[in-house]
């Protein structure tokens, strides 16, 4: 659209909806700044006042008492390692599947597509046992499990894209004496860059927020990712400190919002690319 139309009514309606849309997050934000006694079931709607203002104490409590920084670290390690591994291995695999295109690679491709529909409950018990047996039950090895379970989506996205790349460039490079690994790193990766970003975003959104898989695979006493920590404190019996709880939710949301605002364009393009390929 070259010239933007002015339609005050539509803009006003959409603005009102947008403000309502953000209200749940705002509610948690101002409750995270209130004193414990002011966060009651029906008192959540009152804004912090001079009396109930608690400053950043809830955040400090969340970080110190709940060991939230450690959870943040585990979430970060698991997400980054898993996503890097998924991108590297699955793009290689997709290139092979498309170029070799034999019966076996086709079969593997269809298995990957199939794995995307299967609900996690189907494999949760046996997967946790397998992970224990193979000692994949700590934050530094769990990325292998994520590679296995996340391969479906990534292989699917990458094969869709590799199919559209003309063969000639790779052929010319091989004739010039490049090894397949050189062709992959120096030719394929630069061409695949947009898909790599899209897939990275989709997989990152999944791994960062994943709750059930790490809960079943990791030892909850030693390692807690952010979703695990939130559920552990809120879901455990006994008195729950609402202030630090609200602060923990904000500590989870704030980095997400920052990353979102910075790479908004890529995230939205990633979602569209994922849907179109799907």
């Amino acid at each position: 659209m070259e010239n933007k139309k002015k339609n005050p009514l539509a803009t006003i309606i959409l603005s009102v909806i947008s403000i309502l849309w953000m209200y749940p997050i705002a509610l948690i934000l101002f409750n995270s700044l209130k004193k414990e006694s002011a966060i009651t079931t029906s008192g959540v709607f009152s804004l912090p006042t001079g009396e109930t203002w608690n400053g950043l104490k809830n955040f400090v409590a969340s970080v110190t008492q709940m060991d939230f920084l450690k959870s943040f670290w585990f979430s970060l390690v698991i997400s980054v390692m898993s996503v890097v591994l998924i991108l590297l291995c699955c793009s290689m695999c997709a290139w092979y599947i498309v170029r070799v295109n034999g019966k076996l690679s086709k079969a593997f491709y269809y298995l990957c597509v199939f794995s995307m529909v299967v609900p996690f409950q189907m494999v949760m018990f046996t997967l946790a046992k397998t992970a224990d047996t193979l000692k994949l039950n700590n934050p530094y090895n769990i990325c292998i499990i994520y590679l296995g379970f996340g391969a479906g989506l990534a292989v699917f996205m990458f094969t869709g894209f590799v199919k559209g790349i003309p063969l000639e460039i790779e052929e010319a490079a091989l004739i010039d004496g490049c090894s397949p690994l050189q062709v992959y790193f120096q030719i394929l990766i630069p061409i695949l860059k947009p898909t790599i970003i899209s897939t990275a975003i989709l997989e990152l959104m999944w791994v960062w927020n994943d709750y059930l898989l790490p809960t079943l695979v990791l030892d909850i006493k030693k390692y807690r990712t952010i979703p695990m920590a939130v559920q552990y404190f809120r879901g455990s019996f006994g008195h729950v400190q609402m202030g630090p709880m609200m602060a923990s939710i904000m500590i989870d949301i704030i980095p997400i919002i920052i990353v979102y605002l910075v790479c908004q364009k890529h995230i939205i393009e990633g979602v569209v690319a994922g849907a179109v390929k799907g």
Partner: protein
Amino acid sequence: MVGKTIKKWWPVFVLPTLAAFIIGFLWPFIWGIYLSFCKFTTVQDVTFVGFSNYAKLMLDKSFSYSFWLTVVFAFVSSILINVLAFTIALALTKGFRGTNVFRTVFFMPNLIGGIVLGYIWQTLLNGLLSKWGQPLLALSAKNGFIGMLILLMWQQIGYMMIIYVAGLNNVSPDLIEAAQIDGATSRQILFKIKIPMIMPSVTICTFLTLTNGFKMFDQNLSLTGGAPGKQSQLLALNIYDTFYARSGPMWKGIGQAKAVVFFILVVAIALIQLKATSSKEVQQ
């Protein structure tokens, strides 16, 4: 020639993914199907019992209750999310000022994880319910169900909206202009041109919302935890509960059998839906 050269490089290119795929999906999947025919508490004391787990799960009332609750939930949420997401997408493709800001705002909830979402909405909805003198989420199955619907709508409308916006932007303006010259009303343009042209987006959005509705777990666990009793327990949570919250030697086998039924249900619905909506897609 590329294929021939890289074929013998499979240990580098395919093996890592393949090995992880077998560990992380294929082996647990096959083992899971086998265990659904067994009685077990740990993996050491497995005895084969044939179809008895499947017979027993038919008698488990909580399962059939969760089954139908999930079916209703998935369909209702899918319809609501798609209709609202499409409406917002239509409004945002009219070329008003500030569409980018609105798009950014509507999409944001999608990035927040299910557990945290559940607690955000629990705080908000319980606050509202107690203000209105209504039973809280954990005390009323109806409120819990509506709460889960609202939560899932808040989470997913933005995602589906993005897909619809992309679809609508791809509809050629020439086509619409031609229709306008022929005297089509804006209603006719919507139903005769825009909707048929974006059927691929409808297919993918219905697929995503339906499968997400069926598989919903985290949000269910944190928003209501299945309370009161098991009356807001969707299938995924029911299976988890059967595995890890019920004592007794037979429950793990039954849980695994439930998971197999659940898996067949999701695959069947996905296939039927893909067939139904993709047959309506027009060739562009």
